[in-house]
């Protein structure tokens, strides 16, 4: 059937057609929709894992047992999962094992722009790079075959523009495969030093075999155009280059970019006058080609930072000036993303913003938006979990320096389960005086509403245990009197919790209890609730505007509240010094 699919949808479809049995992931843009789509295929067991390392370990176990298995993660997720990733390269597979990595050139939704192709080189395993949705499906199926044929996990590497672009795909049907036999084999699966050393020799030999396979693999294609310009490219870089250069260049398109097919590259290079390597971010292919002693151009003219585009490539290779459009000469104000109207994070962040002497370590999630004006709460974002662990070191350094401001850390429920618990344990055991805030909105919000261990439901839609965060904190050793559970729509209670935690001499925790305003049931229940301004009483003091709520604006000398966007959280009612705002409508249960 001919369908228009995103790369993520096609990867999921490919896994299904390949007979995959087990799939796991932790959500992360741009990879999230892969598992969301896999979960629609009932033949595959699929799960949201607690974090990326867990997801890779889950599918490693499935592969050892003989099932075809896959996991998917964003680029920084592979950092979390790097430990099993490297050793699974030694162990290899029983059932085919595919690890999907989604990089984010251009940093649309990430904290760095790392190029994960190096992971294939570093862990010595094969890497496939599809250039559109059809190849996402085809390469996914091929990846399982390569995995089983060469006894290796396979890295399928995509980027944001592949994940989130739709293109035409011819889909097929699922080929059922029985789960393979499992036989106990410690020499293969137990990487004690004695077995691991023997395995390393095998891994090196496997790489040579994979290189030979790639030389004549179906993943290589050439297109003859001008002999003057030759381009080696893969993934989205090839699409951009093909668009920009057409028949003004010859192309060597690589689908399997590790190990590189040296003979094919030499052969292509010998036929063109000027060899160009077109790739996003690092000099992964260019460095290898130069290492073969082949002269080429690449990052001397193309940028290392940000995405590529046809225009950038045409400019670098052909010297073409990019087309320009109309210009009014006016620069529009920025439109930064912001916390939604009715977002439950706003209340506690607002209460924290009123305590000027706080230092706040942030984390990855919607609450990161709190670091922007007008709330300005949060001064660091490193990685998932650092919002807690970094507090411990920062607080100790504050004490060493004799600085009195107390350090708070903020993270969400999903991040707490992902890698916040270990930080909290560390804080308690090492007697940190820091304050650890869990903005529990009962969902993994930033990536688009995924289940997590607190939601009571699995990815496959089954009811399950919903972990109780305050009790977990108590089990981590935080004393009951230092665990403050608070409704963030209640500003007074939020301020009292912040004050009490600030004054405490021992590790303190604040847990908020309002669900995300975008959860469908919550939206429905609060649909008719909204706040209104009494223009007679309003003195235009702007106190309500300082909440940074997108539903509240000042237009033509009046404060207006958008009744559609507003969900009646009443923070504006609570900050208004003139009682000029009230709530209307009713809560539907």
């Amino acid at each position, binding site marked *: 059937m001919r369908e228009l699919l995103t790369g993520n949808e096609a990867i999921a479809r490919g896994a299904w057609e390949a007979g995959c049995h087990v799939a796991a992931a932790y959500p992360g843009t741009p990879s999230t929709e892969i598992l969301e789509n896999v979960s629609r295929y009932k033949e595959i067991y699929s799960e949201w894992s607690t974090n990326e390392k867990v997801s890779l370990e889950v599918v490693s176990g499935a592969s050892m047992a003989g099932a075809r298995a896959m996991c998917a993660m964003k680029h920084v997720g592979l950092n979390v999962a790097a430990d099993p990733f490297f050793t699974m390269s030694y162990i290899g597979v029983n059932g085919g094992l595919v690890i999907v990595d989604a990089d984010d050139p251009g940093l649309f939704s990430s904290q760095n722009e790392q190029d994960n192709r190096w992971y294939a080189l570093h862990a010595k395993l094969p890497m496939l790079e599809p250039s559109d949705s059809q190849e996402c499906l085809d390469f996914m199926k091929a990846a399982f075959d390569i995995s089983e044929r060469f006894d290796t996990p396979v890295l399928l590497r995509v980027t944001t*523009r592949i994940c989130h672009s739709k293109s035409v795909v011819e889909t097929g049907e699922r080929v059922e495969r029985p789960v393979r036999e499992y036989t106990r084999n410690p020499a293969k699966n137990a990487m004690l030093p004695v077995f691991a050393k023997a395995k390393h020799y095998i891994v090196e030999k496997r790489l040579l075999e994979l290189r030979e396979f790639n030389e004549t693999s179906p993943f290589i294609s050439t297109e003859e155009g001008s002999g003057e310009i030759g381009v080696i490219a893969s993934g989205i870089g090839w699409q951009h280059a093909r668009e920009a250069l057409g028949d003004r260049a010859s192309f060597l398109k690589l689908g399997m970019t590790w190990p590189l097919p040296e003979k094919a590259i030499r052969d292509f290079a010998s036929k063109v006058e000027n060899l160009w390597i077109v790739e996003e971010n690092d000099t992964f292919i260019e460095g290898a080609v130069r290492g073969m002693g082949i002269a080429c151009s690449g990052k001397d003219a193309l940028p290392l930072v940000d995405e590529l585009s046809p225009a950038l490539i045409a400019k670098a290779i052909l010297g073409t000036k990019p087309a320009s459009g*109309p210009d009014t000469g006016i620069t529009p104000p*920025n*439109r930064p*993303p*912001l916390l939604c109207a009715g977002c439950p994070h706003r209340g506690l962040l607002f209460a924290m913003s009123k305590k000027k002497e706080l230092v706040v370590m942030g984390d990855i999630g919607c609450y990161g938006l709190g670091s922007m004006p007008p709330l300005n709460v949060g001064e660091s974002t490193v990685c998932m979990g650092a919002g807690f662990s970094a507090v411990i070191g920062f607080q100790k350094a504050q004490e060493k320096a004799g600085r009195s401001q107390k350090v708070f850390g903020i993270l969400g429920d999903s991040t707490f389960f992902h890698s916040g618990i270990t930080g909290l344990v560390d804080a308690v055991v090492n007697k940190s005086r820091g304050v650890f805030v869990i903005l529990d909105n009962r969902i993994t919000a930033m990536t688009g509403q995924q289940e997590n261990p607190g939601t009571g439901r699995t990815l496959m839609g089954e009811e399950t245990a919903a972990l109780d965060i305050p009790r977990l904190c108590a089990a981590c050793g935080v004393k009951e009197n230092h665990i403050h559970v608070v409704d963030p729509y209640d500003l007074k209670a939020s301020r009292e919790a912040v004050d009490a935690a600030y004054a405490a001499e021992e590790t303190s925790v604040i847990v908020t209890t309002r669900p995300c305003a975008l959860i469908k049931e919550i939206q429905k229940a609060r649909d008719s609730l909204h706040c209104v301004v009494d223009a007679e009483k309003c003195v235009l003091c702007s106190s309500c*505007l300082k909440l940074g709520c*997108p539903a509240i604006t000042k237009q033509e000398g009046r404060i207006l509240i958008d009744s559609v966007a507003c969900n009646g959280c009443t923070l504006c009612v609570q900050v208004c010094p003139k009682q000029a705002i009230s709530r209307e409508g009713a809560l539907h249960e």
Partner: protein
Amino acid sequence: MNNNGKNVLLVGVGGQGTILASKLLSEGLLALGYDVKMSEIHGMAQRGGSVSTHVRYGAKVYSPVMGTGEADVLVAFEKMEALRWLSYLSSDGVLIVNNHEIYPMPVILGQAVYPQVLEKKLAEAAPRMLLVEAAKAAAELGNPKVMNVVLLGAVVKSLGLADAEWSTTLRACVPPHALEINERAFRKGLNLG
């Protein structure tokens, strides 16, 4: 593009439904027999940030994105976003602007001013500008959210594709309970385009 295809850039504010409108457009183009690519951006920008979706179609499409000066149709779901993305419009391209303002946080906080008499300045820079009252039309239909499908109607009209079988596409992509209002929104858009 060197075949008979076109580039459509849809821009707006996260949450306005640009992605659904782009999806409907792309599915319709596929049904018409074109090769289609659509590139959207998810994630953080969807929290009220500036968003864009590229739709490219023709006999064969390689890159899913267009560059500056290459959009045959630029449709702005929010007025100021037309300004932000204007450089993408080709010299004889059509600019469709929804006459609808959403203030960004710097404007709400009084740190920046929402550009004034914007329609006039946009029309001067892009002679083929079409100002569409999509927000008003959607409100009249009884659901402000179908503004995106009103705008889709206007885009389809300007691409000269109004006679194609769009109702099949709508039926395939819109839930049954919302079909009727979306069909009315689409027809309204065709008339505004």
